[in-house]
């Protein structure tokens, strides 16, 4: 039984410091380099923050272009996360290949079903690759696209481009419906105990996703939170970040996004991670596909490791439907770009939900350059450290209390943590009865 758990983020580069002094427009490209699998998310958040600061409202066609690029990133991520990161936990892949060698024995699928899914692992490589190809039609290249910018995107939809995207989308949707969804259900069927573990904190949050279009309304979910059994609107002023257990100097220990940027301090006593502790109304909140599907009413089965995996697969299917609506709304030849000017000083916030959950960029411009840039990623919400009141983050809470069958091969831990789709190398310590039994590294 896991008595206590700490999730550690062991990589720090310091993007918030790097951004200071740079041209605000450059942030759209620069912040993408925070992450290679969800780079589009940062380009969109950055563009939204700049639009907020410059007082620009993107035309609807521009939003459609940008959100299509973003939607493709969802598909790429979810397919890769499910097949390349999740499936190897539950399905035995060809053991002759060194990449797939594993030592645990908790593979419960009968051979025939196992081998079908193993084959889909390889089939999915082309599909997720095609999701990035679709992204590049409007985004120029993936990862680290060029199309997303203030106003929407630099590219124009042409009939050929729309046609090509539709064709790729159809293929992806076919794969999701006929292979990915059934595979997820098969795994869920043989690993039902994972519906009982990995609950986490039970609070869910979304900044809104594919929402608030003028003509189309909300295609997915609005900014909402779920806590104590009730859904309510999101109040951005209740978002804080806490660094009590993170390697940053404690002044201040809790702050709102516009208030402060924490200074790194690797020698801080009691700290164990680079990841900070974002909080809403002082409480930890989980973000991601499960949160979104729950908040829009699309999935209410439960909150657990397996529910997270299922919700992600369901969301992939939903995103293909959303993308079709957006594609059908495109007007070819529309150029969303204007000549933009940087004001001497301004501030703006870009908050949206992306593949892993809620992402926020907060920018302050002074003297025509970036003076302050705060980034709170979805992985920070999910893999958050403990705050001052010792409340564990969702990932930590999900591990605590988990019964581990075989302490030599604690497979439950990796499976639970990976259900959050973490975007960082993370290590989990298992404590039992107050003494450190083993440090298990779980590298997602």
């Amino acid at each position, binding site marked *: 039984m896991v008595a206590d758990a700490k999730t550690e983020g062991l990589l*720090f580069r310091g993007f918030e410091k*790097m951004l200071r002094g740079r*041209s605000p427009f450059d942030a759209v490209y620069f912040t993408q380099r925070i*992450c290679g699998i969800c780079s589009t998310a940062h380009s969109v958040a950055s563009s939204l923050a700049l639009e907020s600061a410059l007082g620009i409202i993107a035309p609807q066609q521009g939003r459609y272009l940008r959100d299509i690029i973003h939607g493709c990133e969802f598909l790429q991520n979810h397919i890769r996360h499910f097949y390349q990161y999740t499936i190897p936990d539950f399905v035995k892949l060809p053991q002759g290949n060194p*990449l797939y060698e594993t030592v645990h024995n908790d593979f419960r699928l009968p051979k025939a079903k196992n081998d079908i899914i193993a084959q889909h692992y390889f089939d999915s*490589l082309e599909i997720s*690759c095609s999701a990035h190809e679709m992204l590049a039609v409007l985004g120029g290249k993936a990862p*680290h696209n*060029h199309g997303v*910018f203030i106003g929407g995107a630099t590219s124009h939809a042409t009939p050929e481009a729309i046609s090509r995207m539709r064709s790729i989308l159809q293929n992806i949707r076919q794969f999701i419906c006929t292979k990915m969804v059934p595979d997820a259900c098969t795994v869920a069927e043989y690993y039902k105990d994972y519906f009982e573990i990995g609950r986490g904190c039970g609070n869910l949050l979304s900044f809104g996703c594919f929402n608030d279009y003028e003509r189309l309304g909300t295609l997915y979910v609005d900014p909402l939170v779920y806590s104590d059994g009730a859904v309510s609107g999101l109040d951005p002023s209740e978002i804080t970040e806490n660094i009590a257990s993170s390697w940053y100097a404690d002044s201040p220990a809790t702050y709102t996004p516009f208030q402060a940027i924490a200074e790194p301090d690797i020698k801080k006593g009691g700290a164990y991670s680079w990841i900070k502790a974002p909080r809403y109304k002082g409480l930890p909140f989980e973000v991601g596909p499960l949160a979104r599907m729950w908040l829009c009413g699309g999935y209410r089965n439960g909150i657990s490791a397996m529910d997270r995996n299922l919700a992600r697969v369901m969301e992939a299917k939903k995103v293909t439907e959303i993308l079709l609506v957006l594609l059908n709304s495109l007007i070819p030849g529309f150029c969303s770009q204007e000549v933009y000017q940087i004001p001497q000083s301004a501030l703006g916030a870009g908050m949206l939900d992306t593949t892993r959950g809620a992402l926020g960029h907060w920018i302050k411009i002074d003297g025509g350059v970036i003076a302050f840039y705060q980034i709170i990623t979805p992985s920070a919400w999910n893999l958050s450290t403990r705050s001052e009141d010792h409340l564990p983050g969702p990932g930590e809470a999900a591990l605590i209390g988990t019964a581990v069958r075989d302490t030599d091969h604690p497979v439950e831990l990796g499976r639970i943590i990976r259900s959050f789709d973490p975007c960082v190398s993370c290590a989990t310590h298992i404590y039992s009865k107050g003494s450190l039994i083993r440090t298990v590294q779980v590298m997602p």
Partner: protein
Amino acid sequence: MNQENSSCSFLMKLETASMLFHRAAEAVRQKRIPKRNLIWLELTGCAGNIISLLDGANPDFKGLVLRLVNLLYENSLMAAEGGKAMEKLFSAANGDYILAVEGAVSTKDGGLYTVIGRWKGQPITAARAIQEFGPKASYVISVGTCASDGGVSAASPNPGECVGIQSLLERKVIKLPGCPCNPDWFLGTLAYTVLYGEPKLDGRQRPLLFYSTLIHDICPRRPYFDQGIFASKPGEKTCMFKLGCRGPVTRTDCPIRKWNNRVNWPIGDNSPCIGCAMFGFPDKMEPFIRYDVT
């Protein structure tokens, strides 16, 4: 166009990576050359290069792991986890292997800003990893601008004190910069290496196979530049030199190879090149977008 009679150098160039790859894979199948071991380390970076590798299309990732090499260690994709994964890494390093590294190396505070795992109770920092596995590899390939020259990980003020991997190694590193590195550049270089040994490199250790021409010299928008017809904002179809395009100083074959199964590329997307494969990226390539230039 009749491919066999075509002497179009561009088309030939496009097939370099796939031709080399298939040749190498065939040679492995026929046991004319051994199936080499590959270790891929993700260090201080965003892991964009492994994603880019997964986006390869003829040659592709499936071909890499099934036909060309034994991929012994890659922290995102391997099934093993934790201590078992680290065991694989250290035992792989006892034999012959080619080392591919993405991400720079953080050197501040003993390298503790990037820990890739734990081994025998000790954290394995990126710095330790490169010093442990770099010297013994038969070839070391730095994949992406961060590993090659520091890249975004080393952007000013460089809080993690990041450096490219060559700075920590005496032996030569084959550099494949790019943010990310195009999968063709990596797979083509790897295939060439297992077939013929180290490819011909330029003065910055980049294979001439992929890094010889300036984007400006093969850009389809070059006639606009020559005629002085410039875009005043992204989204336009003309030359983006005035917006700050770094095509004139960047050496890659993006205009013809393009990205993601040759579907598009930054300038084709009406946005300027930001010089992501350059040694000065990002600081010396900024500002990426500038309006109101004369």
